[in-house]
């Protein structure tokens, strides 16, 4: 359960390559969410973006009570997917693709902290070298944003 925002801090962490169309959906999502948060002057909500998840993100997320990772996805059926994630001790071959589950595992292992962690994936379609995401992906992003805004309202009650 995501902790109440009146007393707890949440990090929204979007990642991906904004120079490759829909791969940057995580970063674009954060850009839009920041506008909403600033307009409504909401407190205890923090943001970060990056190209990919790295080992030092374990330190970053250890400072928050909850964290929501946001990334693009190819193979989800709906326009977006939101799920709680569990720590994963890794069985991968490259740090070029660390999963948020791995970051959560490292956070627990290295810093003895276990924030509530969730993953929001937004469906993308094209991944070429171009800074503009597709229109379809932007609609999915909008749907995801509506969902998260509703969630944020609940978390302030």
């Amino acid at each position, binding site marked *: 359960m995501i902790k109440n925002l009146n007393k707890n801090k949440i990090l929204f962490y979007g990642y991906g*390559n904004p120079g490759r169309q829909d791969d940057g959906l995580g970063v674009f999502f954060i850009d839009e969410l920041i506008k909403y948060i600033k307009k409504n002057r909401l407190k205890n909500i923090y943001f970060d973006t990056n190209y990919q998840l790295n080992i030092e993100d374990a330190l970053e997320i250890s400072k928050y009570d909850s964290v929501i990772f946001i990334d693009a996805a190819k193979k989800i059926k709906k326009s977006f997917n939101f799920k709680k994630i569990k720590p994963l001790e890794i069985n991968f071959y490259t740090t070029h693709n660390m999963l948020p589950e791995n970051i959560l595992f490292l956070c627990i292992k290295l810093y003895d902290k276990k924030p509530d962690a969730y993953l929001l994936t937004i469906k993308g379609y094209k991944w070429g070298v171009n800074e503009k995401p597709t229109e379809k992906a932007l609609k999915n992003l909008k749907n995801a944003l509506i969902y998260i805004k509703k969630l944020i309202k609940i978390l302030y009650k």
Partner: protein
Amino acid sequence: MAKKIVIEPVTRVEGHGKVTINIDDKNNISQTRFHIVEFRGFERFVIGRPYWEAPVLVQRLCGICPVSHHLAAAKAMDVIVGAGTGDGLTPVAEKMRRLMHYGQIFQSHSLHFFHLASPDLLFGYDALPEKRNVINIAIENKDLAVQAVLMRKFGQEVILRTAGKKIHGTGAIPGGINKNLSIKERDELLKGPNPFNADMMVNWAQSAIQFFKDYYKKNKDFIDNFSKFPSNHLSLVRKDGALDLYHGVLRAIGLDGKKIINDVDTQEYLEYIREEVRPWSYMKFPYIKQLGPEKGWYRVGPLARLNTADFIPTPLAQKEFEEYKKITGKVNDKCLHTHWARLIETLHAAEMIRELLNDPDLQSEDLVIKGNKQKRGVGIIEAPRGTLFHDYEINDDDQIIKCNLIVSTTNNNQPMNEAVNYIAKAMINGKPEISEPMLNAIEVGIRAYDPCLSCATHAYGEMPLEVTLVDSNGKIIDKKSK
């Protein structure tokens, strides 16, 4: 039956590469190749863009080392706006850029050694694949993993305060810089609470070198003899021969350590360096013109830099350099010594960061200088992975009409192919079976060059590992994916 073994992608490097090994009927290596499968095309994409966009635009080449491209492009644009060829900026502009660059070197080198290379060194390249990764470093040596995280974070915080952003910053502009370093920003890095300050980073960089030296003592034979082959070496050096990662003159040494290229102005690089295209790879093959493509290929990066430089202008790194040179000699061709050289550079970067943070010039307001506009500018810098060349020409409408980029990893293209060939012959020749540790040994050789093979898309769940076994007729014998 003759066989072809393909390793794709190469693991624990940045980006995607593929290794192809052809084996004849007697299980002897007949050919090896290291292919680059990603096509970037930035030299075409920038055509038609206004020149002042280049330092921001070309960073999109890479999300791992964008600062290097940002600064190399800015240096080229300095020439175009008439601000000189790298040493004509105001003191605050040059020192802010240097601070940004050393932050990049520090974080990139820390990332490479602790996260990418150390699993092989600590667990052995014949350990199980599930073991050979940074997560197990964290499990088995928590203190080392925590230290590694903070070292990388510190470098990124230096970049944030100098470039404006951790990734794809905008600090360097044609003719200078767009911000200085405030006292608050300086003190956050210089006087931060332990361990997050410049002094601690110097200490940790020293302990990282000691970590390697202790490992080397126990594994000398492996480190000295894994992928050892002679080559030319190239880098920038300061005019007096000192190691200088931001600006200098071009120097190359030959197999015997004698200078082939010396004291060459960066604007004249094309008089000395050529590039060859081969049909089986998107990456080009640079070579020293006077030696030709067969003999003129060269290494760049930490190993090369500690071969070409005469000394290191920071005291602790210089002391380590002297010890390193006593053991390794005038010219060091041992591939895995690159890790040692990289850690000495990490210490040098930490010392430079501390020195620059104490320099009051960083608070000056005199940020930009301009002169008579030129139609062409070259910017060369020593990126973490090696010498990086940016070369631009513009028209009367200030648009880029020509661009040539020789990225660091491209300079190491032939050396990486040589490494694959050397290791494949040593490990696989004549063997009846091909094991995963043998294949990883080849990757160990490539990883020592810390290659950055370009950013790729990595939507959630989309990073399959595929290994294909192909016979000499091109028929797929076996295919496995993960």
